[in-house]
């Protein structure tokens, strides 16, 4: 049999040849693109550098956690947007987790009505577009609320109207310091008690009421401090003044709609993850724990949940990432997040598309990579040791 002995049949050389070809092609494409971009940008008068960062923005933002005005720079606008994105994430992630775990547990409940309700919830919310849900909350719910003068109210503490959700703002007073100290003291005491209780169990086998003690300490000590030195907070209530409510914390309807939509939507996905995690612990584990005499609560705590949590954490963090990425839909409801401010208004005004998009995407990439790295570290530390 005549087999060609040419160099080309050597897999190693072939590999190198393919790779060289790929580098050439990709390099060529990139060079072509950059060349065109350079020419086009100059022709259309688009700035090439990052000088726009220090130019005056000239537009208002209706929610800013740091000082900002129309005279601030585009750079400052970037930071305002980034902080707003992080704010939405920080508020939504705990709420979505809470809802997700609750609905996930409900799915596993022996009560038929409860589990069917949870099933309907997850099915409906996972199969309608998030944007539709956001628009629904924003247009069909929050904007149809009455004006401030006819706000819906809960005992004049919480107000709901078409300008947003108004909550009382806690204003720290002088005794707040002793209040905070008493809280810290309570936490320290609980930690010490837990240690002591563990030692006691190891020595004598007896169990101590850790939960009861913790509850008593965390509530009792601060309460004592408040009684002794006075109320640590006074609440600034929203009050009707003129045509609007003044004072208190105002959650603008854009943020309320975004948070509501993200929390309910992501919660549905988290519920499925929780349910799948608990169900994937083999039934035999539950039986073995029961056969040893562990009652349901102990079996859950010592055997089932430790195994389920391992399976839940990876997809859970991926949902958190999805939530942060999905918060970019803020642009559709007018919430001033990073995309809406920077990739929206700033890009439109400066036309510096390449720079603006590069920065925006870099931010999201950084967040994704950070979370992925943290997850990998966690997984490595928790992997079940096998042969």
């Amino acid at each position, binding site marked *: 049999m005549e087999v060609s002995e040419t160099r080309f049949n050597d897999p190693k050389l072939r590999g190198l040849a393919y790779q060289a070809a790929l580098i050439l092609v990709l390099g060529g494409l990139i060079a072509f693109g950059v060349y065109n971009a350079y020419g086009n940008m100059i022709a259309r008068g688009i700035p090439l550098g990052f000088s726009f960062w220090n130019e005056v923005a000239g537009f208002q933002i209706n929610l800013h956690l740091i000082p900002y005005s129309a005279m601030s720079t585009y750079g400052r606008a970037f930071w305002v947007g980034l902080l707003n994105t992080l704010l939405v994430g920080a508020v939504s992630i705990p709420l979505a987790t809470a809802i997700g775990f609750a609905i996930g547990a409900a799915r596993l409940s022996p009560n038929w009505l409860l589990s069917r309700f949870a099933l309907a919830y997850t099915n409906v919310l996972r199969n309608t577009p998030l944007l539709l849900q956001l628009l629904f909350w924003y247009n069909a719910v929050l904007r149809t609320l009455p004006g401030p003068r006819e706000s819906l109210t809960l005992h004049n503490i919480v107000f709901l109207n078409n300008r947003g959700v108004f909550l009382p703002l806690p204003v720290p007073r002088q005794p707040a310091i002793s209040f905070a100290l008493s809280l810290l003291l309570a936490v320290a005491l609980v930690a010490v008690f837990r240690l002591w209780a563990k030692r006691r*169990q*190891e*020595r*004598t*086998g*007896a*169990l101590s009421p850790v939960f009861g003690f913790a509850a008593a300490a965390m509530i009792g000590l601060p309460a004592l401090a408040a009684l002794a030195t006075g109320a640590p907070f006074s609440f600034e209530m929203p009050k009707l003044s003129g045509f609007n409510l003044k004072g208190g914390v105002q959650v603008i309807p854009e943020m309320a709609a975004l948070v509501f939509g993200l929390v309910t939507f992501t919660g549905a996905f988290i519920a499925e993850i929780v349910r799948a995690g608990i169900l994937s612990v*083999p039934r*035999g*584990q539950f*039986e*073995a*724990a*029961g*056969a*040893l*005499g*562990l*009652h349901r609560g*102990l079996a859950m705590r*010592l*055997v089932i949940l*430790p*195994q389920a949590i*391992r399976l839940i954490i990876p997809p859970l963090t991926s949902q958190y990432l999805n939530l942060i990425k999905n918060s970019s839909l803020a642009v559709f409801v007018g919430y001033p997040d990073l995309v809406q401010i920077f990739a929206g208004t700033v890009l439109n005004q400066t036309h510096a598309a390449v720079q603006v998009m590069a920065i925006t995407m870099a931010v999201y990439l950084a967040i994704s990579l950070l979370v992925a790295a943290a997850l990998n570290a966690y997984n490595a530390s928790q992997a*079940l*040791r*096998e*042969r």
Partner: protein
Amino acid sequence: MTSGELPTRRDQDDVAIAFVGVHKWYGSFHALRNVNLRVRRGERIVVCGPSGSGKSTLIRCVNGLEEHQRGSIFVDGVELTRNIRRIDEVRREVGMVFQTFNLFPHLTVLENCTLAPIWVRKIPRREAETMAMALLERVKIPEQAAKYPGQLSGGQQQRVAIARALAMSPKIMLFDEPTSSLDPEMVKEVLDTMRALAEIGMTMIVVTHEMGFARQVADRVVFMDNGEIIEINAPDPFFDDPKHERTRLFLRQILH
């Protein structure tokens, strides 16, 4: 003759487990039909039968893993009802070894054995660990104490499962096909462990296909088919001279 009467006071001291007119259904499937059986303390019972005969269901009723719908089950004098307290009480005194081991993969071998004594019997940790190490010595794998179940062979895992069940100092041990998931070369080590247990007088009910083991160790062999107890006898008469037609058929099939 198995007795259908309730255990009398005198009997109770002697009887470890009593099934009285027990029926169990899975949905509308009649899985256990009028089971009557008395197991005395220190007795070793082997239950055999074709698959689907109800033998696993039978022993799983003893520690409440399955619920019976008619009749009564008495374990160590306590009647098993749907009362969770009673069930937990019973489970403390009854140890169970499963076909699929069911060791807790996130705990070490030692922790598997000390979990229940610490949290259920409230034994101090050091004492529990000493006890557990002694048991691991008895099942001949003390060097594996710090390893995780996933790092052990099947035979070793099942021996750990036996040690774990024994750590609760049970009065009765139940074995649900303990060697059916093992490779042939590991079956012997597990059977030897069970044999040693039988020799010190543990009350045991073993569901198994290992007829050699049954012959050597059992006081009585119970044959079940279709949810009913068909025949009970001492091992030698049972294997050498089966009386019921179905017993004969079954033995012909498995002793080839």
